[in-house]
């Protein structure tokens, strides 16, 4: 293990975080809030630690898969620890676990909060909360890769470890330009959403935070009723953008490079849109009685479905009080998640496609025991390694899920609360059902429960294995 290069990467991540602190600090200054100093202090701490770690370039350039995964996992942990400081220093969230929970929830784009009333918090704190979504959405190391130059093989390993989905594809010959393209698309779409929201009459602060929350598929609101208080037009705009940010960014790149056919043929996106359509119609029909008109029902259903499947977690209404069919659909959608290569979380549509095809293959194997069959997605053969990884991912996913629910059980809350709390954090969504529903918060859990959920959020965002690697003793062995 090349420790020096890992600390070097972490150093850069901390430097980057220090730079990111300027946005909430400026916000605080604009609104004349004294709490802006907490960002100044944290920024300085972060920059100091970061600079100390990067002054000397590591002598050995070796950077392999294990270094990639460990750097990503440790970077995220460091990011969250430092990121939680402003909450504590400003006194908004004085308790360490709570502050960490809030920060991890932000960076992992979960959007689960322990704050009872967000409207009381200073605006700079709210800005930081939403901005963490934006940083975490596309990934802080991908951002790093687009800015600083790292040696050859290292880049792809970092990218692989941080990007969601079963496999990572290059958009451009070099990883650096790939990262740049991704961030450019990300930035442009965020700007576009902000502008549209402004045109719809949203105040600047609200438009920015909402755009950050949508872009990262995070879901921290700045109002106690999340998006419920905004006009229908704004809700529709947010619905559309949530769905857009849940789409594989490769598709946007294909669109930009005018490969329309290829973009439209993307199997994952088709499935993703089909699932959304199906779910919206079903829920709309199911809740038509609650909202009187079918149109209103469909609009509410669409917002909620988009919010859950993209793992954003905004809410316009308390879907906790919806009929059981709708609630069940929403919980199931929590697991599906968005597309690979998007900013969303969850298991990802592409994994389900591979799993379904593997299932079909297995069934066919009974009909023709000696058949050789390949799994294809988008007409291309999926390598055995990827299929195997998806299978193991599912199994480990279920095991972690079960263990988390079990540990939460000691808090003596009801099963639906526990189950949906884990589902909502592990899939990086935000609100669950019952005690953790859209109008409630996660403060109901004990400290142990919160740590478990923090782990789940990180594991969900980093897709389990990089984080597990850190806890595996062999990783730290010298040979």
């Amino acid at each position: 293990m090349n420790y020096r290069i890992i600390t070097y990467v972490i150093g850069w991540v901390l430097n980057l975080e220090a730079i990111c602190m300027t946005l909430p600090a400026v916000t605080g200054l604009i609104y004349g809030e004294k709490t802006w100093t907490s960002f100044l202090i944290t920024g300085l701490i972060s920059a100091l630690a970061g600079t100390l770690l990067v002054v000397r370039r590591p002598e050995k350039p070796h950077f392999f898969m294990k270094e990639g995964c460990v750097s990503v996992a440790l970077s995220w942990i460091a990011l969250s620890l430092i990121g939680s400081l402003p909450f504590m220093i400003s006194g908004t969230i004085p308790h360490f676990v709570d502050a960490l929970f809030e920060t991890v929830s932000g960076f992992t784009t979960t959007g689960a909060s322990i704050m009872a009333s967000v409207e009381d918090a200073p605006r700079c704190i709210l800005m930081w909360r939403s901005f963490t979504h934006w940083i975490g959405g596309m990934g802080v190391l991908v951002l790093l890769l687009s800015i600083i130059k790292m040696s050859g093989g290292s880049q792809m390993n970092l990218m692989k470890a941080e990007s969601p989905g079963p496999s990572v594809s290059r958009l451009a010959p070099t990883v650096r330009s790939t990262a740049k393209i991704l961030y450019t698309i990300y930035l442009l779409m965020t700007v576009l959403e902000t502008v549209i929201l402004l045109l719809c009459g949203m105040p600047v602060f609200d438009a920015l935070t909402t755009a950050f929350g949508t872009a990262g598929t995070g879901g921290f609101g700045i109002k106690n009723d999340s998006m419920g208080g905004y006009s229908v037009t704004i809700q529709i705009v947010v619905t559309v953008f949530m769905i857009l940010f849940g789409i594989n960014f490769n598709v946007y790149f294909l669109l930009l490079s005018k490969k329309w056919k290829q973009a439209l043929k993307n199997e994952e996106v088709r499935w993703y849109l089909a699932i959304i359509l199906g779910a919206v119609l079903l829920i709309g029909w199911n809740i038509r009685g609650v909202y009187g008109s079918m149109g209103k029902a469909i609009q509410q259903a669409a917002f909620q479905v988009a919010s859950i499947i993209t793992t954003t977690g905004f809410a316009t209404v308390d879907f906790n009080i919806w009929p059981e069919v709708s609630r069940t659909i929403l919980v199931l959608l929590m697991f599906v998640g968005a597309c690979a290569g998007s900013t969303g979380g969850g298991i990802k549509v592409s994994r389900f496609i591979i799993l379904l095809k593997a299932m079909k293959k297995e069934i066919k194997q009974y009909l023709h025991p000696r058949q050789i069959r390949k799994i294809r997605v988008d007409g291309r053969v999926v390598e055995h390694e990827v299929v195997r990884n998806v299978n193991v991912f599912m199994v480990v996913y279920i095991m972690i899920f079960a263990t988390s629910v079990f540990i939460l059980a000691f808090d003596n809350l009801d099963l639906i609360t526990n189950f949906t709390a884990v589902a909502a954090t592990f899939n990086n969504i935000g609100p669950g059902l019952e005690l953790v529903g859209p109008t409630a918060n996660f403060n109901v859990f004990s400290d142990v429960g919160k740590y478990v959920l923090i782990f789940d959020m990180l594991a969900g965002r980093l897709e389990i294995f990089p984080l597990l690697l850190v806890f595996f003793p062999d990783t730290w062995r010298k040979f």
Partner: protein
Amino acid sequence: MKIIIIGCGKVGSALAEELTMENHEVAIVDISAQKLQEVGEDLDALQIQGNGSSINVLMDAGVISADLVIAVTGSDELNLLCCLVAKNLGKCHTVARVRNPIYNKEINLMKESLGISMIINPEMATAAEIARLLRFPSAIKIDPFAKGKVELLKFRLKPEFRLDGKSIVEINMKGKHNILVAGVERGEQVFIPNGDFVLQNSDLVSILASPKNASAFFKSIGLKTNQVRNCMIVGGGTIAIFLARMLLEMKMRVVIIEQSKERCELLADLLPDATVVNGDGTSKNLLFEENLENAEAFVALTNMDEENILLGMFAERMSHAKVVTKVNRVAFDDITDELELGSLIHPKYITTDRILQYTRATQNSIGSNVETLYHILDGKAEALEFVIRENSSVVGVELKDLRLKNNLLVGCINRSGKVLIPRGDDCLMVGDTVVVVTSQKCLRDIEDILEK
């Protein structure tokens, strides 16, 4: 002694050469006339073309009066059959080379039921040799005597040991170490040193000592002696399997890099505790990814000598690992010896050594005889272990009064379990095991150490 060697391959011809030099009557049998021709005139031995398992051929070779039949053809089954037939025709001892790991567990059974005196598995012998080196990584080569109580250890003299320009007497006086410098290789030259001999940097020094004393000596000159705890093996051949098993038994972590996917599957099947890596062992990146820099031992066992040599040099430079390099071809040993390759292992030498050892041991069934024999100092000298079973002219005389041959050293005496490094006023006694180092070949009896 009359010896029949069946199979004129690498090992067969090397054996024939050695044995004829020791004045044995050798007949060599091979199915290929061409192979016999290749060894041709250089070899003072009877050459018979034919299948070694055929009675006629064996009769031609003189099996009736032969003392020893050595079967070293390419086929295990043929070797066993040759020995079986020969055993039934004459009253000879038989040695068979059996290398298929499948027979491994049945070796004892085969020895008993087929009446074969010795079965040698070259790969296993090589693996055992490497494993021994890894147990004591400071030495380039280790040969055990007296069932491991005494070892002959070879190491390269480095400047940091501060032994440059010191005579052997000085070293012994200063450190009071119970060790004996048994041989020194300097470039092409080989010395069996006496007390006045002066060491130089980069000499290859062989010492005789008990493992404990050797450790103490190495420690005092600043040579690391800790046993290695992990090992990287490149090349997943048969030797690798045997070696990995031995190392895993010693609780080492083992990483094997093998190029063929199928072979990897087999390795993973046979060695569940080893980390089997599928990839090109000569890829620098792969070696680093598998953490070559932190490896404590590195063994190059691919089928290509060239690859092994490159890998050995690379590992020697990039890591602090104990490097062991397997080289099949011995022809270029002048060059390979000069390279920084760690320990060189020649599987062919190991096989011939073991068989020669056995030959000499069977040769003298009375009086003192050779228990163990090693080719040392690059094959230019031998270390022999004798047991003194009865009175002879060497017994009871102080060593300084014995008229020993030139270039001969009485290295150590193992007396009822205690190891002595003899001084001039020590004398040999009945029941002793004596290790003698000499560049004079063909010693058969303890009395041969005397000038005639």
